[in-house]
């Protein structure tokens, strides 16, 4: 099957700064890709180029289309939720659904209504009268009712409380995701999405520093918790990062055989947040 996203040498400049710098990657259908990076790393800019919101250099195909020049066709098959893509505060819930139904060929009003039935969102309320959680539910009801091939989430749960955040991802996983559909997600709260991802991309300073499946990450990276002499021995194996936790040393290794480390302390697969820090320190050193 052809890739959902094909990027070759994609760059985006703002003046003299390169927000996205010669990035190449592919995203296959049926994957959930976490795009992880610090503020200003170029995550949002990269997503914008994927969504055709901004022009870019290099070769970029999304669902086989040129996102900037074929935006309208593209948006029939992409859904997009971002903390900055706010629902208009003045619109009534029922009017909003009418509007989306009129302009979106792949929107099912029946499904959106069914979804909203399970929420406290009133049809005659205006968006500005709803709580932030209810606005998210309303937005979700629209997203879930659109038969899209690619879902792009940019900090979708920013400002929501923990219950809504959990519910958000649960809903997307159970009601939306299947092997034909693809999700690309960015968030600060890596721990919350870690267990649902199939792939991770680390991005720093406009460049992709890691692009792997979660399985490959588990194979390649090892975290060792150790202390004393054994720590000295482990340090000789050249970890890519080290940190101290409660007097113990936590070392991250890349491409080092787990068997070799077993005798040296407690071995496990690093969390994405820790791995991210390790990779970034390494890249920046």
């Amino acid at each position, binding site marked *: 099957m052809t890739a959902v996203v094909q990027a070759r040498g994609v760059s985006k400049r703002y003046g003299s700064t390169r927000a996205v710098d010669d990035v190449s990657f592919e995203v296959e259908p049926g994957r959930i890709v976490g795009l992880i990076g610090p503020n200003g790393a170029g995550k949002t800019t990269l997503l914008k180029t994927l969504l055709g919101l901004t022009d870019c250099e290099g070769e970029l195909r999304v669902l086989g289309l040129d996102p900037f020049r074929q935006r309208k066709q593209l948006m*029939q098959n992409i859904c997009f939720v971002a903390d*900055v*893509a*706010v629902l208009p505060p003045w*619109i009534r819930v029922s009017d909003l659904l009418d*509007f989306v139904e009129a302009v979106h*060929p792949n929107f099912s009003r029946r499904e959106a209504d069914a979804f909203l039935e399970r929420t406290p969102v009133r049809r005659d309320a205006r968006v500005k009268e709803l709580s932030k959680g209810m606005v998210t539910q309303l937005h979700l009801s629209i997203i879930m009712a659109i038969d899209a091939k690619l879902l792009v989430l940019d900090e979708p749960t920013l400002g929501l409380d923990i219950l809504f955040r959990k519910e958000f991802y649960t809903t997307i996983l159970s009601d939306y995701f299947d092997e034909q559909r693809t999700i690309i997600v960015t968030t600060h709260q890596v721990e919350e999405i870690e267990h649902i991802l199939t792939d991770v991309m680390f991005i720093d300073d406009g460049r992709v520093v890691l692009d792997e499946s979660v399985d490959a990450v588990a194979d390649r990276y090892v975290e060792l918790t150790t202390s004393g002499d054994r720590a000295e021995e482990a340090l000789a194996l050249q970890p890519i990062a080290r940190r101290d936790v409660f007097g113990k040393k936590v070392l991250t290794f890349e491409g080092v055989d787990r068997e070799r480390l077993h005798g040296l302390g407690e071995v496990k697969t690093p969390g994405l947040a820790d791995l991210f820090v390790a990779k970034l320190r390494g890249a920046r050193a």
Partner: protein
Amino acid sequence: MIRRAYFLMQRELWEHRALYLTPLVIAFIVVLGVATALVTGGGRIVGFENMVAGMQLGGQVGSVAGVTALAVGPSTVFVVGLAFLVFFYSIDALYAERKDRSILFWKSLPLTDTEVVLSKLATAALVAPVITFGFVAATHVVILCLSTVAVWVGGGSAWELVWRPVPLLQIWVLSVYLLIGAALWFLPYIAWGLFCSAFAKKNVFLWAVLPFVVTPLVERLLFDTNLFAKFALGRLSYMQWIKASFSGENLHIAFGDMPGRLTGDVNLLSLVDPGKFLSTPGLWGGLVVAAGFTAGAIYFRRYRDETANG
């Protein structure tokens, strides 16, 4: 396609409720004013009987003039209201969605920037005037009904004194002609407003208005000419448009000698001269300018990138 266009314009009405609330308020005030005038003037001061007697004395010509004035007069209030409404709508149309940050939501739907901008242009030039016309026509009918009651109280025949003399249909056809004409004539200003609302970071009002003040001054200072004032400001004063819309000779009768010497069977529609209007070079020059600003508005909505933060 039509459904899509309909909902795009419907959306503008959901967002900018002033588009129908303003003419509604004007209609209410006009009707209230006419009712007050009838009750205090016609009722208490003159007396309905005397009023009717006066109307009968005025004869055919007087009735036509009086009733026509009663119908046309309020229209001007609506037109002034409409001008303000369209101006403020056009400078807000592409700015509000950036201010309330809903633009990225709209952009997450399969809509082109061209579609969206054109729907806003059509709302300003077409939907707003049509809505206002609806209220104008309704106000006419209500005023005539109030007059009918007043005439009845005074013992006269409403048919003879009110309904037969008033050229209601002509007035309406004339109004529609003027509204279409105005939309086309003033389209460059609407497009300019949309352009500013798409391009300005803030202070859209100043961006939209200041060039009209500053450009003539600069031009005078540098070149000692006043071409900008002649074209951009001369066009804005409605006289050019009125002159272009009507055939010259009849205009004098209608506007110069109102209402005393109006003949009984004046045909308002004989004043209308669409051929003259359509062959005015200024109309087409303006439409070219409007197309340019509209294209600019589309360009800015597509290319501007305000959330360049990550």
